[in-house]
């Protein structure tokens, strides 16, 4: 299903994330505030994304996927860790480097209703970055470029004169994609980019993202909770739980042969589109709920809910180990 990419093992990844942590302070009191703890939204995450690759980042709500994406985009300043984009640390960038980074790295948001400024016409939304970055100073050529971008994203160029509220969700999401493409980026963070759309529109937008990847040689970080979309679109998948990556592998390998108990639980929760199979299937929900990220469990964060947990899981925090070729698992009990 996935197109194998020509890759050289020696090439430096486009994006390297090292020990990324984002802790949001929780404070109490109105006048005299004191810190009572941290929400450890992201707590030590490492991964690489190669040029031209799509990495899926999956996990349930609140596991820190979106925060990871926001840190990469420098919409948040992480508490610790490094994010190297093409070898440069995003967080140490000065103004001039940052302007360049903004052109090379873009984002597509989840909600097509709130990601477009309702007071601006579609054409202005897309042409604004081109104008601000001085890519195309000539107004007429800029208008042509906007029309091109709209048709590349499957919209009639006449939509340039419309306001976002005059369009459907799918059309708006295409506008969001066109805006992200306006600066010819190399890397796009798709933050739940299709999650808010109907299934039929979702398929169209996923196909559009694939086409764009081939056409412009894009690299994606695809954040999602819909596993079938991820399997279709991504070459590699990382599974997050409570701010940490628990498993990372090539897409087919991860879905066919999940090793971490959390990934297994996650995959077993995906319904099978056949009522007979689904009725006869034994479903064992994972006991308990996701613990609070303010006070995460010691050792392996999954141990209170894990069917395989042993005493050692309470103490030592498991590290990602390459148990199979290119298949990394953070679990001390799996071999």
């Amino acid at each position, binding site marked *: 299903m996935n197109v194998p990419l020509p890759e050289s093992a020696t090439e430096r990844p486009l994006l390297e994330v090292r020990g990324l942590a984002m802790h949001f302070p929780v404070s109490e009191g109105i006048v005299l505030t004191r810190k009572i703890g941290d929400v450890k939204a992201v707590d030590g995450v490492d991964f690489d994304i190669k040029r031209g690759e799509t990495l899926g980042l999956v996990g349930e709500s609140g596991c820190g996927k979106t925060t990871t994406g*926001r840190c990469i*985009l420098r*919409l948040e300043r992480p508490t610790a860790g490094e994010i190297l984009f093409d070898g440069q640390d995003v967080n140490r960038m000065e103004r001039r480097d*940052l*302007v360049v*980074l*903004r*052109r090379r*790295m*873009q*984002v597509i*948001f*989840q*909600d097509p209703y*709130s*990601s*477009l*400024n*309702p*007071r*601006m016409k579609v054409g202005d939304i897309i042409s*604004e*970055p081109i104008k*601000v*970055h001085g890519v195309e100073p000539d107004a007429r050529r800029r208008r042509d470029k906007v029309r091109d971008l709209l048709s590349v994203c*499957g*919209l*009639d160029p*006449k*939509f340039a*004169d*419309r*306001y976002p*509220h*005059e369009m*459907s969700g*799918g*059309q708006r999401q*295409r506008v*969001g994609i066109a*805006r992200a493409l306006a*600066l010819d980026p190399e890397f796009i963070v798709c933050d739940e980019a299709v999650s808010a759309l109907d*299934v*039929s529109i*979702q*398929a*169209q937008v*996923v*196909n*559009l993202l694939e*086409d764009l990847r081939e056409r412009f040689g894009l690299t994606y970080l695809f954040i999602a909770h*819909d596993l*079938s*979309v991820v399997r*279709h679109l991504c070459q590699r998948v990382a599974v997050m739980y409570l701010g940490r990556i628990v498993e990372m592998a090539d897409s087919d390998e991860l879905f066919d042969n999940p090793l971490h108990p959390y990934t297994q639980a996650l995959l077993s929760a995906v319904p099978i*589109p056949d009522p007979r199979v689904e009725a006869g299937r034994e479903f064992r929900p994972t006991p308990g709920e996701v613990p609070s990220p303010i006070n995460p469990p010691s050792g392996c964060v999954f141990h209170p809910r894990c069917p395989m947990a042993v005493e050692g899981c309470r103490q030592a925090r498991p590290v990602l180990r390459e148990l199979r070729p290119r298949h990394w698992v953070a679990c001390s009990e799996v071999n």
Partner: protein
Amino acid sequence: MTIIAPNRVAADLIDEPTDRKRSTLDVALNFMKRQPLGSFGLLIVVVMFAAGVLAEWIAPFDPEENDFSAMMEAPNLVHWLGTDQLGRDIFSRLVFGARTALIVGFSAAFMGGIIGLVLGVSSAYFGGWFDLLFQRVLDVLMAFPLIILALAVVSVFGTGVFNVILAITIPLIPRCGRVVRASALSVREVPYVDAARALGFSHARIVLRHMVPNVIAPFLILLSAFVGQAILAEASLSYLGLGVQEPVPAWGLMLQGGAEEYATTAPWIAVFPGVAIMLTVLGISLFGDALRDAIDPKLRDR
């Protein structure tokens, strides 16, 4: 769930947008049909503007000229709204007073409103210590009622049209900043602001182009209320003798002086400027309300 669509032709193409260009006349007629009260307000504002701008041509008499042969005359064919105790034509003074009210009311409301708007949105956008400091300064300014703060400013800078404008502008800033900040706080969390940041736009552009236009609806309501308040404040200051000075015609001044003394014998001296103030404030409020509905793209075509 299947992901692969049978063909890759975008279904969104089917819905072709229609070209709709509307003439200014259409827009105006549409506004009148939809906002009858707003149109009434607009009418008052337009009449007032016309009076203020064309005062020299409309007023039949010099507003500052005394005619001692025609003092305290009741409304008649020569002096349409009568004359005051100094024999000055009330209609002419009302027309010229409209100019004063307009200059002071609009300048103060717009200056106060726009400064408050930019500060309020910036405060919400930057947050942190800037926001905290800004809020405390507003608290201090808000502790004084509008007219008291205006009096304090006038007592520092003195009277006269420009100082009256300044005196009314200052107390309006915190009143605007507070409300605007509240709406801007919710706008800051909306993804299109994040998108603007991710696109590398400057702080000024994000505040002015992406946040300010989206708090404009509450701002316009405020602004229309401010114009009314500013006109009232100017009238009050003038009435108290701390605003516009005689013999410049101003509605507040016209209520002062003889108006009280002759309230029973010559009520027209006080009634007409009073009615003028009331109608103006009402008209501006009605128009502001309608304008808010008309300016919102979501409500516009309904």
